[in-house]
Protein backbone atom coordinates (compact mmCIF):
# COMPACT_ATOMS: atom_id res chain seq x y z
CA UNK A 1 0.00 0.00 0.00
CA UNK A 2 1.32 3.41 -0.88
CA UNK A 3 1.74 6.01 1.85
CA UNK A 4 -1.15 8.44 1.91
CA UNK A 5 -0.44 12.08 1.13
CA UNK A 6 -1.39 13.06 4.64
CA UNK A 7 -1.83 10.81 7.60
CA UNK A 8 -2.90 12.06 11.00
CA UNK A 9 -2.31 9.64 13.85
CA UNK A 10 -3.81 9.85 17.37
CA UNK A 11 -3.74 13.62 17.34
CA UNK A 12 -4.47 15.43 20.58
CA UNK A 13 -4.59 19.22 20.81
CA UNK A 14 -5.01 20.89 24.18
CA UNK A 15 -5.52 24.44 25.39
CA UNK A 16 -4.00 25.49 28.66
CA UNK A 17 -6.38 27.17 31.04
CA UNK A 18 -5.85 27.88 34.74
CA UNK A 19 -2.79 25.63 34.77
CA UNK A 20 -4.35 22.51 33.24
CA UNK A 21 -4.35 21.25 29.68
CA UNK A 22 -7.87 20.94 28.36
CA UNK A 23 -7.98 18.77 25.23
CA UNK A 24 -10.09 20.17 22.42
CA UNK A 25 -9.20 17.43 19.93
CA UNK A 26 -8.56 13.83 20.99
CA UNK A 27 -7.63 10.49 19.43
CA UNK A 28 -8.00 11.88 15.95
CA UNK A 29 -6.68 9.78 13.07
CA UNK A 30 -7.43 10.17 9.39
CA UNK A 31 -5.80 9.85 5.99
CA UNK A 32 -6.00 11.96 2.88
CA UNK A 33 -5.14 10.57 -0.55
CA UNK A 34 -3.88 12.45 -3.60
CA UNK A 35 -6.63 14.33 -5.39
CA UNK A 36 -9.25 13.47 -2.81
CA UNK A 37 -11.75 15.85 -1.22
CA UNK A 38 -12.38 15.20 2.45
CA UNK A 39 -15.19 16.98 4.25
CA UNK A 40 -14.99 17.68 7.97
CA UNK A 41 -18.41 18.32 9.47
CA UNK A 42 -19.68 19.32 12.88
CA UNK A 43 -21.09 22.19 14.89
CA UNK A 44 -18.83 25.02 15.99
CA UNK A 45 -16.79 24.03 19.01
CA UNK A 46 -16.24 20.51 17.73
CA UNK A 47 -12.57 21.01 16.92
CA UNK A 48 -12.81 21.25 13.12
CA UNK A 49 -10.98 24.50 12.65
CA UNK A 50 -8.28 23.84 15.20
CA UNK A 51 -7.57 20.50 13.51
CA UNK A 52 -7.09 22.34 10.22
CA UNK A 53 -4.76 24.86 11.83
CA UNK A 54 -2.72 22.08 13.39
CA UNK A 55 -1.97 20.65 9.94
CA UNK A 56 -0.19 23.90 9.14
CA UNK A 57 1.48 24.17 12.53
CA UNK A 58 -0.68 27.20 13.26
CA UNK A 59 -2.33 26.22 16.54
CA UNK A 60 -2.25 29.48 18.53
CA UNK A 61 0.43 28.93 21.13
CA UNK A 62 0.14 29.72 23.94
CA UNK A 63 -2.38 28.62 25.08
CA UNK A 64 -2.81 25.80 22.54
CA UNK A 65 -0.45 23.00 21.59
CA UNK A 66 -0.37 19.56 20.03
CA UNK A 67 0.05 17.31 23.03
CA UNK A 68 0.09 13.91 21.36
CA UNK A 69 0.20 12.15 18.03
CA UNK A 70 1.67 12.63 14.59
CA UNK A 71 0.82 14.57 11.48
CA UNK A 72 2.58 12.67 8.69
CA UNK A 73 2.86 14.60 5.46
CA UNK A 74 4.33 12.27 2.83
CA UNK A 75 5.74 10.26 5.72
CA UNK A 76 7.34 13.22 7.48
CA UNK A 77 6.07 14.14 10.94
CA UNK A 78 5.11 17.81 11.10
CA UNK A 79 4.48 17.74 14.85
CA UNK A 80 7.59 19.17 16.44
CA UNK A 81 9.07 20.13 13.07
CA UNK A 82 11.16 23.31 13.10
CA UNK A 83 9.49 26.58 12.23
CA UNK A 84 11.70 26.89 9.16
CA UNK A 85 10.53 23.55 7.81
CA UNK A 86 6.90 24.37 8.59
CA UNK A 87 7.29 27.59 6.64
CA UNK A 88 8.45 25.56 3.64
CA UNK A 89 5.51 23.21 3.97
CA UNK A 90 3.05 26.08 4.33
CA UNK A 91 4.44 27.82 1.30
CA UNK A 92 4.86 24.79 -0.93
CA UNK A 93 2.69 21.91 0.01
CA UNK A 94 -0.27 22.84 2.17
CA UNK A 95 -2.18 26.10 1.93
CA UNK A 96 -5.34 27.38 3.46
CA UNK A 97 -8.35 29.52 2.57
CA UNK A 98 -10.12 31.15 5.48
CA UNK A 99 -13.71 32.10 6.12
CA UNK A 100 -13.45 35.88 6.06
CA UNK A 101 -11.68 37.06 2.92
CA UNK A 102 -11.51 40.72 3.93
CA UNK A 103 -9.41 40.28 7.04
CA UNK A 104 -7.06 37.80 5.37
CA UNK A 105 -5.86 40.22 2.70
CA UNK A 106 -3.44 43.04 3.38
CA UNK A 107 -5.32 46.27 2.63
CA UNK A 108 -2.25 48.35 1.70
CA UNK A 109 -1.01 46.20 -1.21
CA UNK A 110 -2.66 45.56 -4.55
CA UNK A 111 -3.90 42.04 -5.06
CA UNK A 112 -1.38 41.55 -7.86
CA UNK A 113 1.47 42.46 -5.53
CA UNK A 114 0.22 40.06 -2.88
CA UNK A 115 0.05 37.12 -5.25
CA UNK A 116 3.32 38.04 -6.98
CA UNK A 117 5.14 38.30 -3.68
CA UNK A 118 4.12 34.77 -2.76
CA UNK A 119 5.22 33.52 -6.17
CA UNK A 120 8.51 35.39 -6.00
CA UNK A 121 9.45 34.02 -2.60
CA UNK A 122 8.32 30.58 -3.57
CA UNK A 123 9.77 30.06 -7.01
CA UNK A 124 12.53 32.68 -6.82
CA UNK A 125 11.03 34.39 -9.85
CA UNK A 126 12.03 37.84 -11.03
CA UNK A 127 9.57 40.62 -10.29
CA UNK A 128 8.30 40.77 -13.85
CA UNK A 129 7.81 37.00 -14.07
CA UNK A 130 6.13 36.90 -10.66
CA UNK A 131 3.69 39.60 -11.78
CA UNK A 132 2.92 37.64 -14.93
CA UNK A 133 2.26 34.59 -12.82
CA UNK A 134 -0.04 36.62 -10.55
CA UNK A 135 -2.09 37.72 -13.53
CA UNK A 136 -2.28 34.11 -14.73
CA UNK A 137 -3.55 33.01 -11.33
CA UNK A 138 -6.22 35.72 -11.31
CA UNK A 139 -7.40 34.54 -14.67
CA UNK A 140 -7.37 30.93 -13.47
CA UNK A 141 -9.68 31.74 -10.55
CA UNK A 142 -12.06 33.46 -12.93
CA UNK A 143 -11.47 37.14 -12.33
CA UNK A 144 -12.45 39.10 -15.44
CA UNK A 145 -9.78 41.30 -17.12
CA UNK A 146 -7.10 40.10 -14.69
CA UNK A 147 -4.32 42.30 -16.07
CA UNK A 148 -6.29 45.34 -14.92
CA UNK A 149 -7.78 43.93 -11.74
CA UNK A 150 -4.30 42.99 -10.51
CA UNK A 151 -3.80 46.68 -9.74
CA UNK A 152 -6.88 46.78 -7.49
CA UNK A 153 -6.71 46.98 -3.73
CA UNK A 154 -8.72 44.48 -1.68
CA UNK A 155 -11.41 47.02 -0.71
CA UNK A 156 -12.20 47.60 -4.38
CA UNK A 157 -13.37 44.01 -4.79
CA UNK A 158 -16.62 42.31 -3.85
CA UNK A 159 -16.64 39.51 -1.26
CA UNK A 160 -16.72 36.81 -3.90
CA UNK A 161 -13.84 38.37 -5.82
CA UNK A 162 -11.77 38.66 -2.63
CA UNK A 163 -12.33 35.00 -1.88
CA UNK A 164 -11.14 34.20 -5.40
CA UNK A 165 -8.00 36.24 -4.72
CA UNK A 166 -7.47 34.28 -1.50
CA UNK A 167 -7.78 31.08 -3.48
CA UNK A 168 -5.34 32.42 -6.06
CA UNK A 169 -2.81 33.14 -3.31
CA UNK A 170 -3.38 29.70 -1.83
CA UNK A 171 -2.89 28.03 -5.20
CA UNK A 172 -0.03 30.04 -6.65
CA UNK A 173 2.53 27.66 -5.17
CA UNK A 174 0.67 24.64 -6.53
CA UNK A 175 0.10 23.04 -3.15
CA UNK A 176 -0.61 19.35 -2.77
CA UNK A 177 -3.27 20.03 -0.16
CA UNK A 178 -5.72 22.91 -0.02
CA UNK A 179 -7.52 23.40 3.28
CA UNK A 180 -10.70 25.46 3.05
CA UNK A 181 -12.29 26.45 6.36
CA UNK A 182 -15.89 27.49 5.71
CA UNK A 183 -14.70 29.32 2.59
CA UNK A 184 -18.15 30.49 1.51
CA UNK A 185 -19.99 31.19 4.75
CA UNK A 186 -19.64 34.93 4.29
CA UNK A 187 -20.78 34.80 0.67
CA UNK A 188 -24.09 34.79 -1.17
CA UNK A 189 -25.46 31.51 -2.49
CA UNK A 190 -24.89 32.26 -6.15
CA UNK A 191 -21.34 33.39 -5.38
CA UNK A 192 -20.87 30.27 -3.25
CA UNK A 193 -21.88 28.22 -6.25
CA UNK A 194 -19.30 30.03 -8.39
CA UNK A 195 -16.55 29.37 -5.84
CA UNK A 196 -17.41 25.68 -5.63
CA UNK A 197 -17.44 25.36 -9.38
CA UNK A 198 -14.00 26.91 -9.27
CA UNK A 199 -12.82 24.36 -6.69
CA UNK A 200 -14.03 21.51 -8.88
CA UNK A 201 -12.28 22.95 -11.95
CA UNK A 202 -9.04 23.54 -10.06
CA UNK A 203 -9.09 20.07 -8.61
CA UNK A 204 -9.28 18.69 -12.12
CA UNK A 205 -6.53 20.99 -13.41
CA UNK A 206 -4.04 20.98 -10.54
CA UNK A 207 -4.94 17.70 -8.89
CA UNK A 208 -4.71 19.02 -5.34
CA UNK A 209 -6.33 17.23 -2.45
CA UNK A 210 -8.88 19.36 -0.63
CA UNK A 211 -9.95 19.37 2.99
CA UNK A 212 -13.25 21.20 3.21
CA UNK A 213 -14.48 22.25 6.61
CA UNK A 214 -18.14 23.16 6.72
CA UNK A 215 -21.34 22.84 8.67
CA UNK A 216 -23.48 22.78 5.53
CA UNK A 217 -24.59 19.27 4.66
CA UNK A 218 -25.58 20.35 1.16
CA UNK A 219 -22.09 21.65 0.48
CA UNK A 220 -20.56 18.45 1.76
CA UNK A 221 -22.76 16.33 -0.47
CA UNK A 222 -21.97 18.37 -3.52
CA UNK A 223 -18.25 18.82 -3.02
CA UNK A 224 -16.63 15.95 -1.18
CA UNK A 225 -15.73 12.31 -1.73
CA UNK A 226 -15.46 11.28 1.89
CA UNK A 227 -16.83 12.79 5.09
CA UNK A 228 -15.57 12.82 8.64
CA UNK A 229 -17.97 13.93 11.38
CA UNK A 230 -16.52 15.43 14.52
CA UNK A 231 -18.24 15.91 17.82
CA UNK A 232 -16.67 17.42 20.93
CA UNK A 233 -13.14 17.00 19.62
CA UNK A 234 -13.50 13.40 18.46
CA UNK A 235 -14.19 11.74 15.16
CA UNK A 236 -17.47 9.91 15.57
CA UNK A 237 -18.15 8.80 12.00
CA UNK A 238 -16.32 8.54 8.72
CA UNK A 239 -17.32 7.19 5.34
CA UNK A 240 -18.08 7.91 1.69
CA UNK A 241 -20.30 10.91 1.10
CA UNK A 242 -23.24 9.05 -0.43
CA UNK A 243 -23.58 6.83 2.61
CA UNK A 244 -23.16 9.80 4.90
CA UNK A 245 -26.17 11.49 3.34
CA UNK A 246 -28.38 8.46 2.67
CA UNK A 247 -27.58 6.15 5.54
CA UNK A 248 -25.93 7.97 8.45
CA UNK A 249 -25.10 5.59 11.30
CA UNK A 250 -24.32 7.78 14.28
CA UNK A 251 -27.38 9.49 15.81
CA UNK A 252 -25.50 12.81 15.70
CA UNK A 253 -24.80 12.38 12.00
CA UNK A 254 -28.37 11.47 11.21
CA UNK A 255 -29.48 14.42 13.32
CA UNK A 256 -27.27 16.77 11.31
CA UNK A 257 -28.53 15.35 8.04
CA UNK A 258 -32.20 15.56 8.96
CA UNK A 259 -32.29 18.84 10.89
CA UNK A 260 -31.92 21.02 7.82
CA UNK A 261 -34.90 21.96 5.67
CA UNK A 262 -34.62 20.47 2.16
CA UNK A 263 -35.48 22.37 -0.93
CA UNK A 264 -38.14 20.41 -2.78
CA UNK A 265 -39.58 20.82 -6.27
CA UNK A 266 -42.52 20.75 -6.27
CA UNK A 267 -42.91 21.52 -2.56
CA UNK A 268 -44.72 19.21 -0.17
CA UNK A 269 -48.26 20.16 0.78
CA UNK A 270 -47.79 19.67 4.49
CA UNK A 271 -44.77 21.00 6.32
CA UNK A 272 -43.57 18.86 9.17
CA UNK A 273 -41.39 20.06 12.00
CA UNK A 274 -37.68 19.60 11.44
CA UNK A 275 -35.78 17.03 13.40
CA UNK A 276 -34.22 18.71 16.41
CA UNK A 277 -30.97 17.93 18.17
CA UNK A 278 -31.69 19.40 21.60
CA UNK A 279 -29.13 21.30 23.66
CA UNK A 280 -25.69 22.47 22.64
CA UNK A 281 -22.17 21.11 22.18
CA UNK A 282 -20.54 20.59 25.59
CA UNK A 283 -17.63 22.84 26.51
CA UNK A 284 -14.23 21.12 26.36
CA UNK A 285 -13.83 21.34 30.13
CA UNK A 286 -17.05 19.38 30.65
CA UNK A 287 -15.71 16.43 28.70
CA UNK A 288 -14.08 14.60 31.54
CA UNK A 289 -17.37 13.05 32.55
CA UNK A 290 -17.66 9.37 31.72
CA UNK A 291 -19.81 8.18 28.86
CA UNK A 292 -20.44 9.28 25.32
CA UNK A 293 -20.21 13.07 25.06
CA UNK A 294 -23.25 13.09 22.78
CA UNK A 295 -25.43 11.07 25.18
CA UNK A 296 -27.14 14.10 26.83
CA UNK A 297 -28.46 15.19 23.41
CA UNK A 298 -29.00 11.76 21.86
CA UNK A 299 -32.51 10.55 21.04
CA UNK A 300 -31.45 6.90 21.07
CA UNK A 301 -29.45 6.96 24.27
CA UNK A 302 -29.05 3.70 26.22
CA UNK A 303 -27.96 3.22 29.85
CA UNK A 304 -24.54 2.11 28.67
CA UNK A 305 -23.93 5.36 26.80
CA UNK A 306 -23.91 7.33 30.02
CA UNK A 307 -21.14 5.24 31.55
CA UNK A 308 -18.77 4.26 28.75
CA UNK A 309 -17.53 6.21 25.79
CA UNK A 310 -17.72 4.07 22.63
CA UNK A 311 -14.53 3.66 20.62
CA UNK A 312 -14.41 4.20 16.87
CA UNK A 313 -15.24 0.82 15.29
CA UNK A 314 -14.46 -0.11 11.72
CA UNK A 315 -17.48 -1.77 10.13
CA UNK A 316 -17.36 -4.54 7.57
CA UNK A 317 -17.98 -2.04 4.76
CA UNK A 318 -15.05 0.11 5.85
CA UNK A 319 -17.11 2.88 7.45
CA UNK A 320 -16.12 3.96 10.91
CA UNK A 321 -18.60 4.77 13.67
CA UNK A 322 -18.21 5.49 17.37
CA UNK A 323 -21.57 4.48 18.81
CA UNK A 324 -22.80 1.67 21.02
CA UNK A 325 -25.74 1.13 18.67
CA UNK A 326 -23.32 -0.18 16.06
CA UNK A 327 -21.66 -2.65 18.41
CA UNK A 328 -25.04 -3.80 19.71
CA UNK A 329 -26.10 -4.63 16.16
CA UNK A 330 -22.83 -6.35 15.39
CA UNK A 331 -22.90 -8.43 18.57
Amino acid at each position, binding site marked *: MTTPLLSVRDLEIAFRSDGTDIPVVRDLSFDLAHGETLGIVGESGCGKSITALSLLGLVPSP*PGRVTKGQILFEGEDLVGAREQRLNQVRGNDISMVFQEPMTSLNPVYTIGEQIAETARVHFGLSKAKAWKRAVEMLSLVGIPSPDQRAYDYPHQLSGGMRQRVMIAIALVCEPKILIADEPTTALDVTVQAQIFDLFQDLKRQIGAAIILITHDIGVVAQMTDRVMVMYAGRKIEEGPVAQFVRDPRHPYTSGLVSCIPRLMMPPSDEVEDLFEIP*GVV*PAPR*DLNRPGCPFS*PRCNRVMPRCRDENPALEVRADGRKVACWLETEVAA
Partner: protein
Amino acid sequence: MTDVTTTAPKPVSPSMQAWRMFRQNHAAVLGLGILIAIIVISLLGPYIYTVPPRDMVWMPLTPPGTSEYVLGTDYLGRDLLAGLINGGRVTLAVGFAAALITVAIGISVGALAGFFGGRVDNFLMRVTEFFQVLPNLLFAMVVVMLFGPDLLNISIAIGIVSWTSTARLTRGEFMRIREMDFVKAERSIGAGNTRLIWRVILPNAAPPLIVVSALAIGTAILFEAGLSFLGLSDPNSTSWGRMIGDNRPYILDSPWGVTFPGLCIFLTVLAISLIGDGLNDAFNPKLRER
Protein backbone atom coordinates in the same frame (compact mmCIF):
# COMPACT_ATOMS: atom_id res chain seq x y z
CA MET B 1 -24.32 23.67 28.84
CA THR B 2 -27.14 25.07 30.90
CA ASP B 3 -29.30 22.31 29.48
CA VAL B 4 -27.11 19.67 31.01
CA THR B 5 -26.57 21.19 34.42
CA THR B 6 -29.52 21.06 36.76
CA THR B 7 -28.86 24.19 38.80
CA ALA B 8 -28.95 27.59 37.18
CA PRO B 9 -25.61 29.37 36.97
CA LYS B 10 -25.19 32.60 38.89
CA PRO B 11 -25.72 35.82 37.00
CA VAL B 12 -22.42 37.42 36.06
CA SER B 13 -22.70 40.99 34.83
CA PRO B 14 -20.09 42.43 32.48
CA SER B 15 -18.93 44.71 35.31
CA MET B 16 -18.39 41.72 37.59
CA GLN B 17 -16.38 40.02 34.86
CA ALA B 18 -14.24 43.11 34.52
CA TRP B 19 -13.70 43.32 38.28
CA ARG B 20 -12.57 39.69 38.40
CA MET B 21 -10.11 40.42 35.64
CA PHE B 22 -8.92 43.60 37.36
CA ARG B 23 -8.22 41.75 40.60
CA GLN B 24 -5.82 39.44 38.79
CA ASN B 25 -3.68 42.38 37.71
CA HIS B 26 -1.25 42.86 40.61
CA ALA B 27 0.16 46.17 39.39
CA ALA B 28 -3.31 47.66 39.08
CA VAL B 29 -4.34 46.43 42.53
CA LEU B 30 -1.14 47.95 43.91
CA GLY B 31 -2.01 51.22 42.18
CA LEU B 32 -5.49 51.12 43.65
CA GLY B 33 -3.96 50.49 47.09
CA ILE B 34 -1.59 53.46 46.77
CA LEU B 35 -4.36 55.76 45.58
CA ILE B 36 -6.70 54.72 48.41
CA ALA B 37 -3.87 55.27 50.90
CA ILE B 38 -3.18 58.74 49.52
CA ILE B 39 -6.87 59.65 49.63
CA VAL B 40 -7.26 58.37 53.20
CA ILE B 41 -4.15 60.23 54.38
CA SER B 42 -5.29 63.44 52.71
CA LEU B 43 -8.77 63.22 54.20
CA LEU B 44 -7.93 62.06 57.73
CA GLY B 45 -4.31 63.18 58.02
CA PRO B 46 -4.97 66.77 59.09
CA TYR B 47 -7.00 65.55 62.08
CA ILE B 48 -4.23 63.23 63.25
CA TYR B 49 -1.13 65.23 62.38
CA THR B 50 -2.27 68.63 63.57
CA VAL B 51 0.79 70.78 62.87
CA PRO B 52 -0.52 73.88 61.02
CA PRO B 53 0.78 73.72 57.44
CA ARG B 54 0.95 77.42 56.76
CA ASP B 55 2.68 78.67 59.96
CA MET B 56 6.34 78.98 60.71
CA VAL B 57 7.03 76.20 63.21
CA TRP B 58 10.80 75.79 63.14
CA MET B 59 13.98 77.14 61.60
CA PRO B 60 13.73 77.59 57.85
CA LEU B 61 15.43 75.09 55.54
CA THR B 62 15.84 72.36 58.17
CA PRO B 63 16.87 69.11 56.47
CA PRO B 64 14.72 65.99 56.98
CA GLY B 65 15.39 63.85 60.03
CA THR B 66 17.10 66.51 62.05
CA SER B 67 14.16 67.76 64.08
CA GLU B 68 10.74 66.66 65.27
CA TYR B 69 9.45 67.69 61.82
CA VAL B 70 10.60 64.52 60.10
CA LEU B 71 10.58 65.81 56.52
CA GLY B 72 12.18 69.10 57.45
CA THR B 73 10.97 72.64 56.81
CA ASP B 74 10.87 74.99 53.83
CA TYR B 75 12.26 78.51 53.31
CA LEU B 76 9.63 80.00 55.61
CA GLY B 77 10.13 77.39 58.32
CA ARG B 78 6.83 75.64 57.49
CA ASP B 79 6.55 71.90 58.20
CA LEU B 80 6.85 70.01 54.91
CA LEU B 81 4.98 66.93 56.13
CA ALA B 82 2.02 69.03 57.23
CA GLY B 83 2.17 70.78 53.86
CA LEU B 84 2.10 67.48 51.98
CA ILE B 85 -0.80 66.10 54.00
CA ASN B 86 -2.87 69.22 53.55
CA GLY B 87 -1.73 69.82 49.99
CA GLY B 88 -2.94 66.35 49.03
CA ARG B 89 -6.50 67.46 49.70
CA VAL B 90 -6.20 70.41 47.37
CA THR B 91 -4.37 68.52 44.66
CA LEU B 92 -6.80 65.62 44.72
CA ALA B 93 -9.82 67.91 44.90
CA VAL B 94 -8.68 69.85 41.87
CA GLY B 95 -7.72 66.63 40.09
CA PHE B 96 -11.09 64.98 40.62
CA ALA B 97 -13.11 68.12 39.98
CA ALA B 98 -11.24 68.94 36.78
CA ALA B 99 -11.54 65.33 35.59
CA LEU B 100 -15.26 65.43 36.33
CA ILE B 101 -15.67 68.57 34.25
CA THR B 102 -13.53 67.09 31.46
CA VAL B 103 -15.61 63.94 31.39
CA ALA B 104 -18.94 65.74 31.68
CA ILE B 105 -18.24 68.05 28.76
CA GLY B 106 -16.43 65.39 26.73
CA ILE B 107 -19.12 62.76 27.09
CA SER B 108 -22.00 65.15 26.45
CA VAL B 109 -20.47 66.62 23.32
CA GLY B 110 -19.20 63.26 22.04
CA ALA B 111 -22.48 61.49 22.76
CA LEU B 112 -24.62 64.06 20.95
CA ALA B 113 -22.23 64.26 17.99
CA GLY B 114 -21.90 60.50 17.68
CA PHE B 115 -25.58 59.75 18.20
CA PHE B 116 -27.15 62.32 15.91
CA GLY B 117 -24.38 62.54 13.32
CA GLY B 118 -24.91 64.80 10.32
CA ARG B 119 -25.11 68.52 11.01
CA VAL B 120 -25.06 68.21 14.79
CA ASP B 121 -21.90 66.17 14.50
CA ASN B 122 -20.38 68.60 12.06
CA PHE B 123 -21.02 71.59 14.31
CA LEU B 124 -19.88 69.93 17.52
CA MET B 125 -16.74 68.59 15.89
CA ARG B 126 -15.79 72.05 14.63
CA VAL B 127 -16.19 73.34 18.20
CA THR B 128 -14.07 70.45 19.44
CA GLU B 129 -11.37 71.21 16.89
CA PHE B 130 -11.40 74.85 17.98
CA PHE B 131 -10.64 73.84 21.55
CA GLN B 132 -8.13 71.28 20.38
CA VAL B 133 -5.92 73.76 18.55
CA LEU B 134 -5.84 76.23 21.42
CA PRO B 135 -2.54 76.13 23.31
CA ASN B 136 -3.73 74.34 26.46
CA LEU B 137 -1.57 75.88 29.13
CA LEU B 138 -1.88 79.39 27.78
CA PHE B 139 -5.64 79.20 27.52
CA ALA B 140 -5.95 77.78 31.02
CA MET B 141 -3.75 80.59 32.33
CA VAL B 142 -5.91 83.20 30.65
CA VAL B 143 -9.07 81.69 32.17
CA VAL B 144 -7.55 81.58 35.65
CA MET B 145 -6.23 85.12 35.41
CA LEU B 146 -9.54 86.46 34.11
CA PHE B 147 -11.77 84.84 36.70
CA GLY B 148 -9.38 84.72 39.61
CA PRO B 149 -7.30 81.86 40.94
CA ASP B 150 -9.64 79.95 43.21
CA LEU B 151 -9.94 76.18 43.23
CA LEU B 152 -13.19 76.10 41.27
CA ASN B 153 -11.89 78.34 38.51
CA ILE B 154 -8.69 76.35 38.27
CA SER B 155 -10.68 73.13 37.94
CA ILE B 156 -12.93 74.68 35.32
CA ALA B 157 -9.94 76.01 33.38
CA ILE B 158 -8.31 72.58 33.33
CA GLY B 159 -11.60 70.94 32.38
CA ILE B 160 -12.25 73.33 29.52
CA VAL B 161 -8.89 72.71 27.89
CA SER B 162 -8.81 68.92 28.24
CA TRP B 163 -12.24 67.57 27.27
CA THR B 164 -11.62 67.26 23.53
CA SER B 165 -10.02 63.83 23.43
CA THR B 166 -12.79 62.41 25.64
CA ALA B 167 -15.34 63.89 23.25
CA ARG B 168 -13.65 62.27 20.26
CA LEU B 169 -13.46 58.90 21.95
CA THR B 170 -17.09 59.09 23.06
CA ARG B 171 -18.19 60.08 19.58
CA GLY B 172 -16.36 57.12 18.07
CA GLU B 173 -17.87 54.68 20.53
CA PHE B 174 -21.36 56.08 19.98
CA MET B 175 -21.02 55.85 16.22
CA ARG B 176 -19.96 52.23 16.52
CA ILE B 177 -22.58 51.18 19.05
CA ARG B 178 -25.53 53.06 17.56
CA GLU B 179 -25.31 50.80 14.50
CA MET B 180 -25.54 47.64 16.59
CA ASP B 181 -28.67 45.56 16.46
CA PHE B 182 -29.56 45.91 20.11
CA VAL B 183 -29.94 49.66 19.61
CA LYS B 184 -32.23 48.99 16.65
CA ALA B 185 -34.07 46.50 18.84
CA GLU B 186 -34.59 49.16 21.50
CA ARG B 187 -36.01 51.48 18.87
CA SER B 188 -38.37 48.79 17.69
CA ILE B 189 -39.83 48.57 21.20
CA GLY B 190 -40.39 52.31 21.35
CA ALA B 191 -37.30 53.66 23.10
CA GLY B 192 -36.76 57.40 22.61
CA ASN B 193 -33.49 59.18 21.95
CA THR B 194 -32.91 60.13 25.58
CA ARG B 195 -33.16 56.54 26.68
CA LEU B 196 -31.02 55.35 23.76
CA ILE B 197 -28.23 57.81 24.53
CA TRP B 198 -28.03 57.60 28.30
CA ARG B 199 -29.44 54.20 29.20
CA VAL B 200 -28.58 52.01 26.23
CA ILE B 201 -25.51 53.28 24.41
CA LEU B 202 -23.61 55.06 27.18
CA PRO B 203 -23.35 52.03 29.52
CA ASN B 204 -22.01 50.02 26.60
CA ALA B 205 -19.54 52.75 25.70
CA ALA B 206 -18.46 53.01 29.33
CA PRO B 207 -15.37 50.75 29.44
CA PRO B 208 -12.98 52.93 27.41
CA LEU B 209 -14.54 56.06 28.91
CA ILE B 210 -13.86 54.82 32.42
CA VAL B 211 -10.24 54.25 31.47
CA VAL B 212 -9.76 57.75 30.04
CA SER B 213 -11.64 59.29 32.96
CA ALA B 214 -9.26 57.63 35.40
CA LEU B 215 -6.30 58.85 33.39
CA ALA B 216 -7.87 62.33 33.17
CA ILE B 217 -7.51 62.63 36.95
CA GLY B 218 -3.77 62.07 36.60
CA THR B 219 -3.50 64.57 33.76
CA ALA B 220 -5.47 67.15 35.72
CA ILE B 221 -3.19 66.75 38.74
CA LEU B 222 -0.17 67.34 36.53
CA PHE B 223 -1.88 70.32 34.92
CA GLU B 224 -2.71 71.82 38.29
CA ALA B 225 0.90 71.35 39.36
CA GLY B 226 2.01 73.15 36.23
CA LEU B 227 -0.32 76.10 36.84
CA SER B 228 0.67 76.34 40.51
CA PHE B 229 4.30 76.14 39.59
CA LEU B 230 3.73 79.19 37.40
CA GLY B 231 2.15 80.93 40.35
CA LEU B 232 -1.46 80.52 39.26
CA SER B 233 -2.87 78.87 42.32
CA ASP B 234 -5.39 79.66 44.98
CA PRO B 235 -3.54 81.89 47.44
CA ASN B 236 -5.67 80.49 50.27
CA SER B 237 -4.71 76.88 49.81
CA THR B 238 -1.52 74.94 49.32
CA SER B 239 -1.27 72.21 46.73
CA TRP B 240 1.70 69.97 45.93
CA GLY B 241 2.31 71.90 42.74
CA ARG B 242 2.32 75.17 44.64
CA MET B 243 4.83 73.74 47.13
CA ILE B 244 7.18 72.89 44.30
CA GLY B 245 6.75 76.34 42.81
CA ASP B 246 7.33 78.04 46.17
CA ASN B 247 10.45 76.03 46.94
CA ARG B 248 11.93 76.23 43.48
CA PRO B 249 14.26 79.22 44.19
CA TYR B 250 15.80 77.31 47.11
CA ILE B 251 16.30 74.06 45.26
CA LEU B 252 20.08 74.04 45.83
CA ASP B 253 19.87 74.81 49.56
CA SER B 254 16.93 72.55 50.32
CA PRO B 255 16.32 70.02 47.53
CA TRP B 256 13.86 68.19 49.84
CA GLY B 257 11.47 71.12 49.52
CA VAL B 258 10.71 70.19 45.90
CA THR B 259 11.54 66.49 46.08
CA PHE B 260 8.82 65.41 48.49
CA PRO B 261 5.87 67.13 46.82
CA GLY B 262 7.26 65.98 43.46
CA LEU B 263 7.38 62.42 44.76
CA CYS B 264 3.78 62.69 45.95
CA ILE B 265 2.60 63.85 42.54
CA PHE B 266 4.63 61.11 40.88
CA LEU B 267 3.19 58.40 43.14
CA THR B 268 -0.38 59.58 42.68
CA VAL B 269 -0.16 59.84 38.91
CA LEU B 270 1.66 56.51 38.70
CA ALA B 271 -1.04 54.84 40.82
CA ILE B 272 -3.74 56.28 38.56
CA SER B 273 -1.91 55.11 35.44
CA LEU B 274 -1.60 51.60 36.85
CA ILE B 275 -5.31 51.58 37.64
CA GLY B 276 -6.11 52.88 34.16
CA ASP B 277 -3.96 50.16 32.63
CA GLY B 278 -5.65 47.52 34.75
CA LEU B 279 -9.11 48.79 33.80
CA ASN B 280 -8.12 48.74 30.16
CA ASP B 281 -7.06 45.10 30.37
CA ALA B 282 -10.13 44.19 32.40
CA PHE B 283 -12.49 45.67 29.84
CA ASN B 284 -10.67 44.38 26.80
CA PRO B 285 -12.61 41.29 25.72
CA LYS B 286 -9.70 39.89 23.72
CA LEU B 287 -7.55 39.60 26.79
CA ARG B 288 -10.49 38.30 28.77
CA GLU B 289 -10.80 35.24 26.53
CA ARG B 290 -7.35 33.97 27.44
